[in-house]
């Protein structure tokens, strides 16, 4: 855990993927161009969300004391913690994988597992800006039916995950991808 991963451990998979894609592009330039167009799209949408999200993560880390997180989102934060986690997740912006570093920081700062699972679930499928988009494209009844179902699903899944996670060790925050918070 404390051992610093080697260059190959960090960059092996990304480099292999880039290499594989380049080989594919040599074999079929058509596909290669298509992939590049999609990848450019991906990178542009990443650029839209990723830099501010990481600045916010840093600010959150520096300014929000652990006690506050424990009090509002901790293991015993109850219904209000759940509501807060739902609100935070559904007001978020960006793809689901942008939620994972935020979830890590929340766990490191002492947030409870259930609120964090609710947060990730809400981020995945309850984002309010996305709902507006969905209403626009697919209509009110489709969007609202799906939203109502998802709300129940997110809570149920978080509950099951919380039960499961109690049996799994080591605790979540130890197999982390982020450096430990600076102001612990």
């Amino acid at each position, binding site marked *: 855990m404390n051992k610093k991963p080697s260059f190959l451990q960090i960059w092996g998979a*990304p480099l292999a*993927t880039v290499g594989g*894609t380049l080989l*594919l592009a040599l074999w079929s330039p058509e*596909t290669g161009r298509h*992939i*590049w167009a*999609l*990848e450019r*799209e*991906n990178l542009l*949408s990443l650029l*839209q969300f*990723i*830099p501010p*999200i*990481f600045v*916010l*993560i*840093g*600010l959150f*880390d*520096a300014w929000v004391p652990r006690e506050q997180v424990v009090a509002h989102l901790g293991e015993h934060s109850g219904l209000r913690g759940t509501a807060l986690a739902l609100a935070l997740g559904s007001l978020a*912006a960006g*793809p*689901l*994988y942008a939620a*994972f*570093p935020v*979830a*890590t920081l929340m*766990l490191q700062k002492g947030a409870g597992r259930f609120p964090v*699972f609710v947060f990730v*679930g809400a981020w*995945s*499928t309850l*984002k309010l800006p*996305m709902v507006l*988009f*969905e209403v626009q*494209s*697919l209509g009110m009844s*489709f969007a609202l*039916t*799906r939203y109502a*179902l*998802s709300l129940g*699903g997110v809570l149920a*899944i978080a509950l*099951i995950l919380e039960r*499961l*996670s109690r049996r*799994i060790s080591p605790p*979540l925050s130890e*197999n*982390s*991808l*982020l*450096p430990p918070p600076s*102001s612990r």
Partner: protein
Amino acid sequence: MALYVVTALLLVTSWMLDREKTRRALRQGWKSFMGILPPMVTVTLLAAGAVALMPPEVLASLLGEKSGILGALGASLVGSITLIPGFVAFPLAKTLLDGGAGVPQIAVFLSTLMMVGVVTFPLESKIFGSSLAFARNALAYVFSLLVGAVFGMLGMR
């Protein structure tokens, strides 16, 4: 854009209140970013490859109105593997619906698209551990099929 504005405001406020703390915040943010960058390169490239290798005709025939449970399963597989941002996915779903795809199948497609991430799995396991990450994705997958079943039972068109 709103995200940038809010972030900038908070950053300026933080800088005026405590420069040292703000420097620390930025350093921490940068470290977190460098931690997530390599898996993100892998994830976005794999996703782009998956979409590029999956022709739209296949997609449409998989999700057809009469495709029933098989169609829903197909939709769930496509949705789990691909990674399309919402503002692209909803218009795409509309196009597929207009092109004859069934409503339950589209519901399954959208639900798995948002909640299940096969290509993001390596990233997720680093945070939740692989067994919990697997459990989250498996539960979300089953749930998405249930969503499709409800849409089917409601007879939504």
